[in-house]
């Protein structure tokens, strides 16, 4: 397939006695959507946290375009082109919608951003385009905390759009969306994919997975049980059994 941009090998992490992630190897490709599916507690979010540097891995490696990223701080990983969303969104609650998105375009930690007013106008344009694309333009001046559920989810996406990253790690961005919103969300992903963004999507709804993803990695108890073509994986009765919660032989 196309260029490989992110690769993890044997990522592992345990909490006390719980082996949350047990040797996960994943690759993400430019312009492809990889869906990360698996039952609750499978280790999906933890895998993201290990990649982004929010958690330290017990063992294993990860690299972006060949550059090792283990041990980097979250903001350093972000500056290599990784944008992520959070399962619990983590919006900047007391800022306006537009400020939330503008903040995503401003990464310098100094008193001011480089590039003067030209660069500032470019950032504002990027932020406004992200608002437009997510349908939030009319709400630009509302505070994030006052938004409705679906609007919050789109604001979280708008931040990612504005960040101009080429690797997206999305943690259940479509959960709880109605059909119309889901379609709009799908369009966002397809546009990004067309621009060559590598996307990893955590999603429980298999219809969404089938519609949007090129590949599936099936995670259970911290291990990738199967990886490959969506149709093939979703037809596998053993995986379906695990996914839908009746685990016939626990020991297996």
């Amino acid at each position, binding site marked *: 397939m196309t260029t490989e941009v992110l690769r993890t090998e044997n990522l592992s992490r345990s909490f006390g006695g719980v082996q949350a992630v047990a040797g996960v190897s994943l690759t993400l490709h430019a312009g492809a959507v990889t869906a990360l599916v698996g039952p609750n507690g499978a280790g999906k979010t933890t895998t993201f946290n290990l990649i*982004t540097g*929010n958690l330290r891995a017990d063992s294993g490696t990860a690299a972006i375009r060949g550059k090792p990223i283990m041990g980097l*701080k*979250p*903001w350093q990983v*972000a*500056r290599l082109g990784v*944008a*992520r969303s*959070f399962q619990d969104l*983590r*919006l*900047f*609650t*007391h*800022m306006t919608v537009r*400020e*939330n998105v*503008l*903040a*995503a375009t*401003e*990464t*310098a*930690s*100094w*008193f*001011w*951003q480089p590039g003067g007013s030209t660069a500032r106008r470019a950032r504002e344009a990027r932020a406004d385009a992200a608002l437009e694309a997510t349908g939030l333009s009319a709400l630009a001046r509302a*505070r994030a905390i006052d938004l409705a559920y679906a609007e919050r989810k789109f604001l979280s996406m708008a*931040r990612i759009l504005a*960040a101009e990253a080429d690797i997206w790690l999305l943690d259940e961005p479509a959960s709880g969306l109605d059909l119309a919103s889901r379609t709009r969300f799908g369009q966002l992903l397809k546009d990004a994919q067309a621009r060559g963004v590598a996307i990893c999507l955590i999603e429980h709804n298999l219809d969404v997975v089938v519609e949007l993803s090129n590949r599936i990695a099936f995670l259970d108890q911290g291990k990738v049980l199967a990886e490959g073509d969506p149709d093939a994986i979703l037809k596998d009765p053993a995986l379906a059994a695990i996914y839908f919660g009746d685990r016939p032989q626990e020991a297996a």
Partner: protein
Amino acid sequence: MIAYAANLATIVAIFAILAATLNFIVGYAGIFSVAHAVFFGLGAYAGAQVALLLIPDPLLACLAGAVVAGGLSLCLALPALRVRGEYFVAASMGLQMMAVTLFSEAKPLTGGIGGLVNIPRPTLFGVEVSVLPLALVALALILLATALLQRGAFGRTLQALRDAESAAEALGKNVAAAKTLAMAFACAGAGIGGALFALHLSFVNVESFTMDQSVLVMAMVIIGGTGTLWGPLVGAIILLSLPSGLAFIPFIPPTEVGAVQQIVYGLAMTLLMIFRPAGLVGDLSKGRATA
């Protein structure tokens, strides 16, 4: 009477500097320091020493105050990088209490309990100047700087890390650097206020840099309204006119005016939090802007 008004105006300007800089970290970055008087004190001692040992140049004194206070702000930035909320309040309160002991004991630097006396009048280019215009200019510059920072990208970064630190980091923001920088800026501002204070009174001692003083500055910020531009100024004016107002009330014995004043603003803080948490200047509909 004029001298009285000029003195009050100078003190108001100096405390407005303190309140505006404290507001910068409390209202925008959500870093709740009860140690602002420490940096006020560091600036005062540094400014006083410059005037005593070198020349009573107010600009040099302010520079020294800013550098010393801004540099030592790392003592407070360190815990701010590790913890937030309650934990940080505890750390800053401890720092405040420790600093008072240090100020009282480090006699060569601070003059101990007796303080530094006979600080020469400030002179600029050989002419003796009053501190009032200097303080007003400093206040105007600091208000301008905070306004620009607060409304620009840096202010957004601080608010972002206040509301959701991990999300700010995930967007590539170096949270540690931003916090340290905000802290250095606010503390350097307090240091400038301190240097001006020392030159104005020509005498400083540890009494002015205690927990009570930190509480007073905090009250100014809160009563004015955190996260607003004019709130700290309004708070400083109200709280500093309070003692003169109370002095006119006949049944308060003069020795108790200080205590009555503290009771009034203590009550004001509590009642505001119960009934109007955004402060006097703050927009009620926006609610409290601090996590």
